[in-house]
C-alpha cells in the first residue's frame, strides 16, 4: 500500500477534484483552482517523505529510491504547470472547462508514474497510453480554434501510430523470449535477428514519444497548435517521463545489446541536436521556437543515455530536473504574454525590457539556463552530460554537441537581443501579472539558481542511481 503511495495519492486527489467539480455550480467553476493547486502541493510535499520501496503484483510494479525521485521531479513540474496555467484558465473561453484541465492532467501524471515504475511490458504499455491519450484531448482544449483541434487530431494519430509500432516490437519480444517481465526478458534476450527487429520497432515507437529526429515532425505542429500551457506540459513533463522510462529500459532490459543501441543513439543524437538547432533558428513563433529547442535538448539528453553507467543515469535525471525549471520558466513568460496580449511572435518581443523588466529578466535567466551559460544550472546539466559521453571515449560526439551548444546560443540570444536591445515603435505594453504567475516564475528561478549552485543535489542523485545499471 505505502509502496504505491505516489499513485494512490494522485488518484485520491483526482477523485476529490471530481467530487468538488460535481458540487460546484455552473458559473463558479473557477473555485476549483485553489483546492487543485493546494492538493497538488500537498501531494508533492508528501512525495518527499521517505517510505518503503519494493516490488508489487509479482514484479509488475516496482519502485526504488531513484524511481521515487523521478516521480517527485514530475510532481514538481506538474505543480508548476498548474500554477502557471491559472491565468489562461481564467480567460472566458476556458471558464467552463477548468476542472477538466486539472483532472485530465492528473490522470496523465498517474499514467506516467505507473509507466516509470513498471516491471513488465504490459504495465509499461498501459501507463504509456494513460499518459498519452488524455493529452490529445488537452491539445484540442480550445476546441473552437481550428489550430487547437488540428493539434489534437495530429497528436492522437501520431500517438496511435507510434504505439502501434511500439506494440509490434513488444509482441515480437514476447514471442521470442516467452515473457513480458523485464528481468526475464533481459535474461533470455539473445539478439537473434527477430529480436533485433523487435528492438528497432520498440526504439522507433519510443523515439516518436520523445520526438527524436527522424520522428520529430509532429512535435512542432502539435506544440504550436495546442494551448501554450499544454505545450509546456507536453514538452517538459511528458518528455521527461518518457526519457526516464526509456533510459531505464535501455539500461536494464536491453543491456545485452548495449553495443548495438549505442551506435543507433550515437547517430540519432547527432541528427536530433543538429536538426533541432537548425530548425529552431528560422522560427518566428515563440511556441514553435521552444518546440524545436526542446527537440534539440532531447538530443543532448541522449548523450547522457549513451554514457551507459551510473553516471549516465545521474546526468539524465539531473538534466531533466534542470530542464523542467528552465523550460517552464521560459514557457511561463511566453504564457503570460500570450494570455495578456495574444502575441506569440518573437518579433513582438522587441523592446519588451523597457515595458516589463522583471519578466524580461526571468526569460533571460531561463534562456541562459537552456543555452548553458556557466554560472546557471543549465551549464552544469550540459557539462555533466558531456562528461558522461566523454567518459565512454566518444570525443567526436562531444565535440559535435559542443558545436551545437554554440549554435543554440545564437538563437537563444536572438530573443534576448529582441527584448533588451531592439527598439520598437509599439512594444508590448506594461501589464501586471497575477500572483499565481509570479509564484510559478519564482519557483522556476529558485530552481534554476539553487540547483546550479548547490552540488548536494547532484551528489544526492548520484548516490541514488547506484545499481540501476
Amino acid at each position, binding site marked *: 500500500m505505502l509502496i504505491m503511495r505516489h499513485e494512490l495519492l494522485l488518484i485520491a486527489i483526482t477523485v476529490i477534484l471530481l467530487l468538488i467539480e460535481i458540487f460546484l455550480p455552473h458559473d463558479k467553476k473557477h473555485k476549483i483552482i485553489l483546492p487543485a493547486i493546494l492538493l497538488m502541493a500537498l501531494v508533492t510535499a508528501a512525495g518527499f517523505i521517505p517510505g518503503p520501496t519494493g516490488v508489487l503484483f509479482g514484479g509488475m510494479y516496482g519502485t526504488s529510491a531513484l524511481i521515487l525521485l523521478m516521480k517527485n521531479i514530475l510532481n514538481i513540474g506538474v505543480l508548476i504547470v498548474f500554477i502557471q496555467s491559472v491565468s489562461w484558465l481564467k480567460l472566458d473561453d476556458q471558464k467552463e472547462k477548468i476542472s477538466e484541465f486539472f483532472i485530465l492532467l492528473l490522470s496523465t501524471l498517474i499514467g506516467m508514474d505507473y509507466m516509470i515504475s513498471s516491471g513488465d511490458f504490459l504495465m509499461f504499455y*498501459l501507463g504509456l497510453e494513460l499518459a498519452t491519450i488524455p493529452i*490529445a*484531448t488537452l491539445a484540442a482544449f480550445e476546441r473552437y480554434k481550428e*489550430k487547437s*483541434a488540428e493539434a489534437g487530431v495530429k497528436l*492522437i494519430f501520431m500517438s*496511435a*501510430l507510434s504505439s502501434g509500432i511500439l506494440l509490434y516490437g513488444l509482441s515480437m519480444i*514476447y514471442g521470442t523470449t*516467452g515473457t513480458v517481465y523485464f528481468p526475464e526478458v533481459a535474461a533470455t534476450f539473445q539478439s537473434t535477428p527477430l529480436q533485433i527487429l523487435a528492438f528497432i520497432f520498440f526504439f522507433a515507437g519510443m523515439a516518436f514519444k520523445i520526438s527524436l529526429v527522424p520522428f520529430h515532425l509532429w512535435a512542432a505542429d502539435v506544440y504550436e497548435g495546442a494551448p501554450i500551457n499544454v505545450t509546456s506540459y507536453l514538452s517538459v513533463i511528458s518528455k521527461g517521463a518518457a526519457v526516464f522510462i526509456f533510459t531505464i529500459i535501455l539500461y536494464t532490459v536491453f543491456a545485452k545489446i548495449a553495443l548495438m543501441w549505442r551506435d543507433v543513439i550515437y547517430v540519432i543524437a547527432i541528427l536530433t541536436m543538429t536538426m533541432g538547432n537548425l530548425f529552431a533558428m528560422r522560427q518566428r513563433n515563440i511556441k514553435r521556437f521552444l518546440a524545436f529547442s526542446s527537440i534539440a535538448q532531447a538530443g543532448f539528453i541522449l548523450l547522457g543515455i549513451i554514457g551507459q553507467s551510473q553516471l549516465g543515469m545521474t546526468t539524465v535525471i539531473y538534466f531533466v530536473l534542470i530542464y523542467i525549471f528552465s523550460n517552464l520558466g521560459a514557457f511561463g513568460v511566453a504564457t503570460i504574454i500570450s494570455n495578456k496580449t495574444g502575441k506569440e511572435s518573437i518579433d513582438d518581443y522587441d523592446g519588451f525590457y523597457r515595458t516589463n523588466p522583471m519578466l524580461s529578466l526571468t526569460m533571460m535567466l531561463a534562456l541562459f539556463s537552456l543555452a548553458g551559460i556557466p554560472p546557471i544550472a543549465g551549464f552544469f546539466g550540459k557539462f555533466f552530460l558531456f562528461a558522461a559521453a566523454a567518459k565512454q571515449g566518444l570525443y567526436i560526439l562531444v565535440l559535435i554537441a559542443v558545436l551545437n551548444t554554440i549554435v543554440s546560443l545564437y538563437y537563444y540570444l536572438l530573443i534576448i537581443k529582441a527584448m533588451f536591445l531592439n527598439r520598437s515603435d509599439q512594444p508590448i505594453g506594461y501589464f501586471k501579472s497575477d500572483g499565481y504567475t509570479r509564484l510559478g516564475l519564482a519557483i522556476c528561478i529558485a530552481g534554476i539558481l539553487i540547483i546550479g549552485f548547490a552540488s548536494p543535489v547532484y551528489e544526492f542523485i548520484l548516490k541514488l542511481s547506484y545499481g540501476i545499471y
Partner: protein
Amino acid sequence: MQFIPISYYLIFCSVLFCIGVIGVLIKRNALLILMSVELMINSINLLLAAFSTYLNDPAGQIFVFFIMVVAAAEVAIGLAIIVVIYRTTHSIDIDVLNKLKW
C-alpha cells in the same frame, strides 16, 4: 493434430501490419486513418494470441484484452476530435488540416 506453423502467423501479421501502416500514411480521410490504425492494432493482437498459444503461456492473451480496451479508448478520443474538426471545417479530409506548417 496438425497446427498452423508459427511462421505463417508471423508473415500474415506482418503483411496486415504493413497494410495498416501504409493506410495511415496514404489515406486522406480521417476515418479511414482510424480504421487503418485499428488494422495495425488487430494484427498485433493476432500475433500476440498466436505466440501465446505457441508458447503455452497465457500472458500474451491477457495482453490482447488490455490492448483492445486501450484501442477503444484511443478511437473514442480520435472520433471525438474528428467531430470537433468537422464542426469547424465541415470536412474530415486531413488535407484541410494545414493551419500548422513550418
